[in-house]
C-alpha cells in the first residue's frame, strides 16, 4: 500500500543511510498493570533506527505513555523483550532525555540551572561537574541560545510563558546529548501557533543532532510534520495496527503542512485511528 501511494505522487525522496540494526527493538511486548484486568499493551512490536524520529499516535488512553515507560525501563514488561542500543532493558536506562506535556521544570532553579540538571547526574558530565563548571554552563547557555531563550537563563521557570517553558524543557532533555529522546505530548498544552513554532524548533534540533526520538502525540499534523515513521496504535489493549513511513523532504515547513501530500498523509492516519476507535 505504501508503494502505491508513493508512486502515485511525484517522487519525494530524501535518502538517508539507515542503520541496519535498529536502535530500539520491541519484540512482542505485553504489559498488564497490577490489579488491572486485561492487558494495557498487547504484543507490541516496533523498532526505531539509529537517529530516526518515530511518532506513536492512537486513541486517548490506549497506553502510549505506558509504551514510553517501557522503552526507558521505568516499567518492566510483563512479557516480551525491550532492546535498546543492543542491550535488553531490565531497569531504568540511563541518560535518556525526556519531555512531558507538563514542563516539570524545577521552580527553585533558574532556567539555566534547570538545563544544567542532567549534567549533574549523567556521566561523564557528573564526574567533571565542578572542574568543568564554566564549560557546562556555556553548554547549557548554547542550548538556550539554540531555542531562542538565550536572554532568559537567569529567569525562573514561572517567569516564562508556557511555550518558553517547553523550550527550556527541550533544552534540558537534550543538553547531555542523549542518544534517545522521549517526548510524551510535549506540545499538547500550548496554543496552536506556539505549538507550530515549537515543531520547527524541535525539527531544527533533531536535524542538527540526529538523536533517535519517540514522540507520543494526539496531534496527527504534529506526527506527520516531525516523524520519519508513524505507528498507529489501537485502543486498549493496544496493538500496533499500522506503520507508515512519512516520505516528506526535510526541513519541513508549516507552509508545507498545507500541501496536498501532507494533508493526504494526515487524512490517512486519521482514517486508521477512527478505525481503531470503533
Amino acid at each position, binding site marked *: 500500500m505504501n508503494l502505491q501511494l508513493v508512486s502515485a505522487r511525484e517522487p519525494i525522496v530524501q535518502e538517508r543511510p539507515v542503520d541496519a540494526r535498529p536502535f530500539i527493538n520491541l519484540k512482542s511486548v505485553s504489559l498488564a498493570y497490577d490489579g488491572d484486568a486485561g492487558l494495557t499493551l498487547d504484543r507490541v512490536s516496533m523498532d526505531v533506527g539509529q537517529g530516526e524520529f518515530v511518532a506513536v499516535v492512537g486513541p486517548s488512553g490506549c497506553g502510549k505513555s505506558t509504551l514510553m515507560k517501557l522503552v526507558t525501563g521505568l516499567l518492566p514488561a510483563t512479557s516480551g523483550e525491550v532492546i535498546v542500543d543492543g542491550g535488553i532493558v531490565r531497569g531504568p536506562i*540511563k541518560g535518556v532525555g*525526556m519531555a*512531558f506535556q507538563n514542563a*516539570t521544570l*524545577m521552580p*527553585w532553579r533558574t532556567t539555566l540551572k534547570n538545563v544544567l*540538571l542532567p549534567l549533574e*547526574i549523567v556521566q561523564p558530565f557528573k564526574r567533571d561537574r565542578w572542574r568543568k563548571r564554566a564549560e557546562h554552563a556555556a553548554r547549557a547557555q548554547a542550548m538556550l541560545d539554540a531555542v531562542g531563550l538565550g536572554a532568559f537563563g537567569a529567569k525562573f521557570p514561572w*517567569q516564562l510563558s508556557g511555550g518558553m517553558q517547553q523550550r527550556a524543557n527541550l533544552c534540558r532533555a537534550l543538553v547531555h546529548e542523549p542518544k534517545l529522546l*522521549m517526548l510524551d505530548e510535549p506540545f499538547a498544552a500550548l496554543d496552536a501557533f506556539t505549538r507550530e513554532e515549537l515543531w520547527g524548533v524541535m525539527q531544527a534540533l533533531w536535524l542538527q543532532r540526529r538523536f533517535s526520538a519517540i514522540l507520543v502525540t494526539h496531534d496527527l499534523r504534529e506526527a506527520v510534520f516531525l516523524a520519519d515513521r508513524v505507528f498507529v496504535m489501537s485502543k486498549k489493549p493496544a496493538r500496533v495496527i499500522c506503520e507508515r513511513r512519512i516520505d516528506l523532504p526535510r526541513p519541513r515547513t508549516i507552509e508545507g503542512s498545507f500541501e496536498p501530500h501532507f494533508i493526504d498523509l494526515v487524512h490517512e492516519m486519521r482514517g486508521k485511528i477512527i478505525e481503531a476507535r470503533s
Partner: protein
Amino acid sequence: MKASVRKRLVRQSMPWLLGALLLACWQIASTRSGVSHAILPAPSEVLHAFAQYRSALTEHALHTVVTSLIGFFLALIGGVLLGLAVGASPVIYSGVYPLLVAFNAIPKVALLPLFVLWCGIGFLPAILTAFSLAFFPIVVNVATGLATIEPEMEDVMRALGARRDEILLKVGIPRSLPYLFAALKVAITLAFVGSVISETVASNEGIGVLMMAASSRFEVSLVFAGIIVIAALAIAFYGICGLVENYMAHWAFRARGGQ
C-alpha cells in the same frame, strides 16, 4: 504606583493600629468599668510593671528563649530526619505514621510529670515539652512535601539515571522546603507554649515561673507583663522564621506577586 504605595503602607500599619485600638479599649474598660485592678489592671499599670521588673523580666525571658530554642532546634533536626524517612519510604510511613498521630494526640501537659520524674526540676523538662510540641508539625509537613513530588519530575530524574539519594537531594528536599518553613512558623510558637507550660509547673527560672510567682502574690500587672513578653517573643521568632523562609524558598511565593 502611588496608590499601590499607599495601599502597602495601610496594610503594613494595620496590625499596629489594631493593637493600639485594643490597648485603648482595654485602658478604657479597666479605668471606667469599676472592675478591680487586682483582676484587670490597666495597660498603664502593666507598663509600670515592665519598668519596675525590667531586669527580672529580661533574665527570665532569656531563660525561656534559650530553652524554647533548644527544644525547637532538636525538634527541627529530629523532625526533618524522621520526615524525610517517612516521606521517602512507604514502609516507614505505614509503620511510623499511626504512632505519630497517637503521640501527637497525647496532651503534653500530661507528660510533664513524667519528664519531671526523669529529669528533675529545671530546664530539661521545659526543653522536652517544647520539643514534643514542635516535633509533630515538622515531621508531617516534611513528609507531605516529599510525598507530593510530581511523578513526572521523578520520571525525568530516573530516566537520567539518578539514584534515589540524588532524587531526594535535588528534588525532594527543595520541594519540601516551603512545607518545612510553614511548619517551622507553627513549631516555634508551639515551642514557646511548651517551655512556658513546663516552667509554670517545674522550674525555678523562666517567664512561666515569674508569672506563677506574680499571680501568687496578686501582682496581676506583672502576670500581664509576662504574657506580653511571651507574645512579643513568639511574634519576633515567627518573623525570623518568615525571613529565613523568604530567603530559602522565595520561589514558592510567586503566586503572591513574588516576581
